[in-house]
């Protein structure tokens, strides 16, 4: 039994052999619960001047939204870049940072700004 084009586009149906039964299958991918960035009330903001590139925030982030970019810091260090689409704003990164380079800022400040710019995110 072939998988139809519309089913393939959704990427959700697997054919199990033998028997050829079509089964709904969850595929690993971002956004299993949508853009979880909407849950956030406080936004982590990284001060790259202070950051030493120690990787601790990357290691502890429970949502895996921090990506380490090698050699892009002001002193040539590796720096964390946060994906705000999915960051839930728990603040674990700010709490484990040994040099206090991550500040938790109220989300309302960013939402007001984004509204002005017409981002539609608010």
């Amino acid at each position, binding site marked *: 039994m072939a998988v139809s084009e519309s089913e393939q586009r*959704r*990427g*959700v149906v697997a054919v199990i052999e033998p028997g050829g039964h079509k089964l*709904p*299958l*969850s*595929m*690993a*991918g*971002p*956004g*299993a*619960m*949508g*853009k*979880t960035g909407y*849950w956030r009330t406080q936004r982590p903001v990284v001060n790259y001047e202070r950051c030493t590139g*120690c*990787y*601790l925030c990357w*290691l*502890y*982030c*429970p*949502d*895996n*939204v921090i990506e*380490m970019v090698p050699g892009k810091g002001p002193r040539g260090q*590796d720096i964390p870049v946060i*994906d705000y*689409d*999915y*960051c*839930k*704003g*728990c*603040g*674990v990164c*700010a*709490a*484990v940072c040994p040099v206090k380079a991550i500040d*938790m800022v109220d989300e309302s400040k960013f939402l007001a700004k984004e509204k002005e710019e017409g981002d539609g995110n608010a």
Partner: protein
Amino acid sequence: MAVNIKKLPKKPYVIPGHAACPGCPESMGFKYLGMALGDKAVVVIPAGCSSVIQGLWPRQGFGLPILNIVFAAAASTASGLARALKRRGVDAQVVVWAGDGGTADIGFQALSAAAERGEDIIYICVDNEAYMNTGIQRSGLTPYGAWTTTTHTGKKQFKKPMPQIVAAHRVPYVATASVGYPWDFIAKLKKAASIRGFKYIHLHAPCPVGWRFDPSLTAKIAQLAVETGAWILYEYENGKLRLNPPSNRLIDPKKRKPIEEYLKLQGRFRHLKPEDIEMIKKEIETNWEDIIRALKIQGDL
């Protein structure tokens, strides 16, 4: 086995946008599981928070093959899976990722039987000290004095000594770990994967929702639990007990931080009276005495 943080795999085994609460220790722990075992791991998850964290079809938030199964059958399912994969010649490591209820209460007989048969699996108990997924009910691993929705005045019984119970099955590897010390957990997982037979790792995972603390403190509270001596990091390798850093420096009670530092951050211990804190201190002291006695018998102390 030292772990270099910068050389850990960058591949996401926990994928952004999953359904965990902010500051979840289980998704943290699962990330370390992926980092340690890589694509070799096949995970069996009984009912619990981790079955919810995966999110809704057609996506899933964990980047490893997962079999979701009922509470009572996690270890027995993993036994069959490990044997079948071996016969089919697949190079895989079957891992059970169970909560404290799925380990110490409902899943206990399957765990005990798999340990007795010596199945080639890694059993990880993610211990958040209550049934968090169903609404914070007490479990056999809830500590003395802790508030839950079924123990309003604090639990009156002590925590089950789960690692010792499994170690009494004489399995090749039993260890305790904490989400506050990922390098220790990753090293223990790698060691467990290199051993054949039944391996058990007990992962301490502070839950911000159920323990009533700020989500940013997950890692800090996990570290405080170890530094105050409330949670001890050790491993039994072929029956031989060894303390791991930083717990190996804390045999002397004077070197431990006061337990109040750990208790005062958590809302579930808010109602404690001084005599309750004395009871908790006594329990911790008993746990340490057991460890020290075992080390003395081995001649390591």
